[in-house]
């Protein structure tokens, strides 16, 4: 058994400190916003210029100018603020965010990650990811453990064009929580029923 997306999001929530400020990337990470208990007092930042994202709006409060980085409608909590993109990335680059959560295509033992293009096939662009991986105090990669072909996305060395080199602190995959340690992955925790030899990672790459 591996973790569902919701269970992965809950694992990420357990890594966050009360009162911290975090950025959530496009795609699966936006789910984390819906799993954070409000009593943790966490402020969610979105690079398009807002701090203090709350849950989804209602039909009455929905606004075309109130969206997250995934262009999805959101609402804001009390104490929220709006600002321009340069200030928004100043918050990121300046080290003012406690954590960021990014979706990734590949991550390796050195903590390098790839998430913005597959040469000749697909280009999404890096958006804010290249800034986020250097600016935030804790970079968390969130991903389904396996590709559609069943190969581990946790690899010895990324083959895809990098988003950042040696920047990931923690990996939360559908199979467990890991830390890149330079030459190996440290297994922090495995999802219930998942064993070391089911990870699709060469055993000599596991601590």
């Amino acid at each position, binding site marked *: 058994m591996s973790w569902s997306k919701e269970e992965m999001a809950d694992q990420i929530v357990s890594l966050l400190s009360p009162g911290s400020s975090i950025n959530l990337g*496009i795609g699966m990470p936006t789910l984390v916003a819906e799993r954070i208990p409000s009593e943790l007092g966490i402020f969610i930042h*979105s*690079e*398009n*210029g*807002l701090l203090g994202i709350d*849950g*989804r*709006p*209602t*039909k009455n409060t*929905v*606004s*075309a*100018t*109130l*969206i997250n*980085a*995934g*262009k*999805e*409608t959101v609402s804001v909590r009390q104490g929220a603020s*709006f*600002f*321009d*993109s*340069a200030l*928004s*990335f100043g918050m*990121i*680059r300046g080290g003012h965010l406690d954590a960021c959560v990014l979706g990734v295509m590949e991550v390796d033992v050195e903590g*390098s990650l790839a998430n*913005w293009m597959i040469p*000749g096939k*697909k*280009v*999404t*662009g*890096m*958006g*804010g*990811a*290249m*800034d986020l991986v*250097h*600016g935030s105090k804790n970079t968390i990669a969130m991903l389904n453990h396996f590709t559609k072909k069943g190969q581990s996305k946790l690899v010895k060395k990324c083959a895809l*064009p*990098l*988003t*950042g*080199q*040696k920047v990931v602190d923690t990996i939360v995959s559908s199979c467990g929580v890991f830390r890149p340690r330079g030459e190996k992955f440290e297994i922090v925790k495995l999802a219930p029923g998942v064993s070391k030899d089911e990870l699709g990672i060469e055993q000599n790459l596991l601590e």
Partner: protein
Amino acid sequence: MKAVKTKVFDDASSALHDLKDGMRIMSGGFGLCGIPENSIEQVLASGVKDLTAISNNIGNSGRGLAKLLKTKQISAAVCSYVGGNPDLEQQMLAGEVEVELVPQGTFSERIRAAGMGIRGFYTPAGAGTPIAEGRETRMFDRECLFEVPLEADLAIIKAEKGDRYGNLWFKEAARNFSPLMAMAASLTVVEVEQLVEVGEIEAESVHLPGLFVDRIYQGSNYANDIEFELLSE
């Protein structure tokens, strides 16, 4: 004494009467949020071509600036994210539009630098990745890339409210790149949902001082599209 020249124009066609082929045009907005809808329609109608578009997404889902991709008016683009913009992704992979992908924080800071007179800066974003190839780097606490300002001939901007001097007020998260672009272009043309008298926007509430604005007009027929409307149950 000379009379003060008005910045107020009747509509998009008068405010953008001097568009030219080959212009470098910045356009505010994040996805479709806060885009200058009327000015984009005017660029489309004018038929000017060989444009360089500088915008975070160059439109999305066939809307916004993506309309100018469909008409092949754009030959080069500077942007950070093309996911959700099939027109750009196709034309980029086919080599029809030359695309410079820039990390979003670097993109916004390069635009800010152009407006603020900063000649260059170093940032770690992109170091050790393919975009660093052949670039000037310098070692601080970690390797950083040297970046230069990004400027334009024209910025087209939308604000919720603007007064006749050009002071602007943006709604919610529609601000994004708009005030930065307004400062970085030789000519800044703003459309607003509400054109008001000077003094109606309180001085403390001005998001962008009017000195950065050259022309302003009252826009009309805003679609204000939402890309992904997600509601709570």
